[in-house]
């Protein structure tokens, strides 16, 4: 027991972030640079820049999903609800401010200068005319303030996740039952938002979000690049944050919760607290990703947070590779880009003589098949390929080379 005196206190030898983090961030920087150059040379369209920017946001959501599912073992099938809420929160300000910029100058033409109330009423009837109303619902209370709505981008998904997670984890709902509960959450939210009197324009959703108030004169080609940069920055920061969270002892405890939560309790850890931490933090980051996504998409409506959206998110992470952040990011990028290629008519139809395979119809079948195949034959997903490469380069030897005395010892192998 006297060993401790001879050993100095030194930091854990494992680095806080794995080398893959720096590779990923470097690749992201190069990607952003290349897209920027190509876009300014006119080599790629504004629409494609927006698609790439949106893909970066989806990658961020997938990285968050990987932390909550791949590391902590909570298969949340409701995380796109947080994504959508983030989009709605920023969308409210975008719609309000832009409508104000149109309505206020028009009213100023009148002989009598308009009062603040008149301007507000005019904005209200512009925004809510489509659902047969002209009054601002209570949820639009802060919509005139960018700062307040930006705060709500973080607070609304965060609070929903905190309350929902607290109720669910406290009752020790786990596994498939928790997944069903998260599906119910996102479904209930979508159904509520579909109603005209929900205050968020029912199934019309919020639109015109690509127009940034105050920057009406700036062409979309430029705005699309701004959002690409912002999305890349958010992805980089989010990736760094999660890489830090899942490293060291926190990562250890989260993975332990995933593998055997009862055992973690006997070590004295409050398992529910750790789950709630992972669930809420990832919900907040997913909300931020959504707030960057929808101004690039231009429109958000309740169909965006239908249960299927969250299932896609899980599929991306599974195909990319659970339990490694870059795997989730690669999976989201690959599958969502392939998806828009196939469903956007990019993929040529296959004429089989008796039947023509049209990818707009058959893409989902292909995706479903790949998901089943990955689950059955390559549970590590695309990220597992990295293991294959590494295993070839570095032989994974533990101990000596053979059982008999003539065998080479471990030390000799290193020489």
């Amino acid at each position, binding site marked *: *027991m006297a*060993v*401790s*005196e001879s*050993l*100095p*206190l*030194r*930091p*854990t030898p494992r680095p*806080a972030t794995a080398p893959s983090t720096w590779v990923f961030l470097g690749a992201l920087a190069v990607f952003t640079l290349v897209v920027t150059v190509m876009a300014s040379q006119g080599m790629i369209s504004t629409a494609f820049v927006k698609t790439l920017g949106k893909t970066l946001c989806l990658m961020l959501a997938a990285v968050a999903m990987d932390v909550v599912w791949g590391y902590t073992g909570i298969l949340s099938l409701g995380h796109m609800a947080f994504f959508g809420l983030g989009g709605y929160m920023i969308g409210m300000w975008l719609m309000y401010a832009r409508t104000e910029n149109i309505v206020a100058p028009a009213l100023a033409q009148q002989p009598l200068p308009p009062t603040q109330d008149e301007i507000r009423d005019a904005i209200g009837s512009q925004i809510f005319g489509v659902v047969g109303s002209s009054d601002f619902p209570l949820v639009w209370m802060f919509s005139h303030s960018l700062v307040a709505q930006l705060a709500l981008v973080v607070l609304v998904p965060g609070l929903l996740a905190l309350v929902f997670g607290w109720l669910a984890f406290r009752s020790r709902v786990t596994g498939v039952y928790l997944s069903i509960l998260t599906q119910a959450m996102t479904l209930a939210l979508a159904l509520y938002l579909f109603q005209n009197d929900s205050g968020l324009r029912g199934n019309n959703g919020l639109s015109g979000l690509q127009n940034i108030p105050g920057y009406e004169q700036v062409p979309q080609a430029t705005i699309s690049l701004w959002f690409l940069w912002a999305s890349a920055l958010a992805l980089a920061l989010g990736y760094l944050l999660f890489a830090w*969270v899942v490293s*060291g*002892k*926190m990562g*250890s*405890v989260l*993975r*332990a919760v995933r*593998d*055997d939560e*009862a*055992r973690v*309790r*006997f*070590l*004295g*850890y*409050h*398992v529910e*607290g*750790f789950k*709630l*931490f992972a669930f809420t933090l990832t919900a907040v980051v997913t909300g931020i990703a959504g707030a960057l996504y929808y101004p690039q998409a231009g429109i958000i409506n309740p169909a965006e947070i239908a249960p299927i959206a969250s299932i896609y998110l899980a599929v991306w992470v599974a195909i990319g590779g659970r339990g490694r952040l870059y795997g989730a990011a690669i999976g989201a990028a690959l599958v969502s880009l392939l998806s828009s290629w196939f469903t956007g008519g990019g993929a040529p139809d296959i004429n089989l003589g008796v039947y023509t395979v049209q990818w707009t119809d058959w893409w989902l079948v292909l995706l479903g098949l790949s998901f089943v195949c990955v689950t059955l034959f390559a549970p590590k997903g695309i990220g597992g390929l990295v293991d294959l490469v590494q295993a070839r380069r570095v032989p994974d030897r*533990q101990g000596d080379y053979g059982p008999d005395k003539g065998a080479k010892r471990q030390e000799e192998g290193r020489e």
Partner: protein
Amino acid sequence: MTLLEVSGVSVSFDGFQAIDNLSFSIGEPELRAVIGPNGAGKTTFMDIVTGKTRPDSGHVLWGEDNRNLVGLSEQAIARLGVGRKFQKPTVFEAQSVRDNLAMALKAPRGPFDVLLRRSVDEGRLHEVAAEIGLEDHLDRPAGALSHGQKQWLEIGMLLAQEPRLLLVDEPAAGMTTAEREHTTDLLNRLAQRHAIVVVEHDMAFVRRLGCKVTVLHEGRVLAEGSLDHVTQNKDVIDVYLGR
């Protein structure tokens, strides 16, 4: 001084009386062996003390201020100083020996403590690793260890927690003779400062521990005393040793 006092505890599962008005107490320091045939309630007894199972009636009193442990969560009881080693070694196989030990080391347990205080007491970690003979295996995944080494790792995790009361379920299962001797030495040494309850089937092992023995049967204490004393008890011979 009495550290843990279980009094009048009963629990039944679907009509089966697993623990029937059980009373048990252990001091600090003290080493105690609990023996009994299968289904005697040994594991249920540990489940009650560690908060996994809530008894139908009775008290589990802890420490100087006689705090009732009934109704507290597993993690709260663990933080008060009750450590448990399971019969089947349950270590986190996907993680390294180092990570397993670092998780168990006594330190603040809240999510933000764990996130922000990143330094691990390496001295203490190596001390524990040396005690359990796994110092050269710190970077191996726990899943790659042999059965005996996993047993040791779990004992190491128990030590790292620095509990006041150690509940140890069949510590010597799957160990070689030399390892068993090491385990007995370790338990005897720990018993000079801690309260330890060892559940064991192996009589030779219990004899080497040389401590007071409690015999459980059908959820009740059948006999208590030295090993020689209880093995001469007629009831004990009838239900356990006689078979």
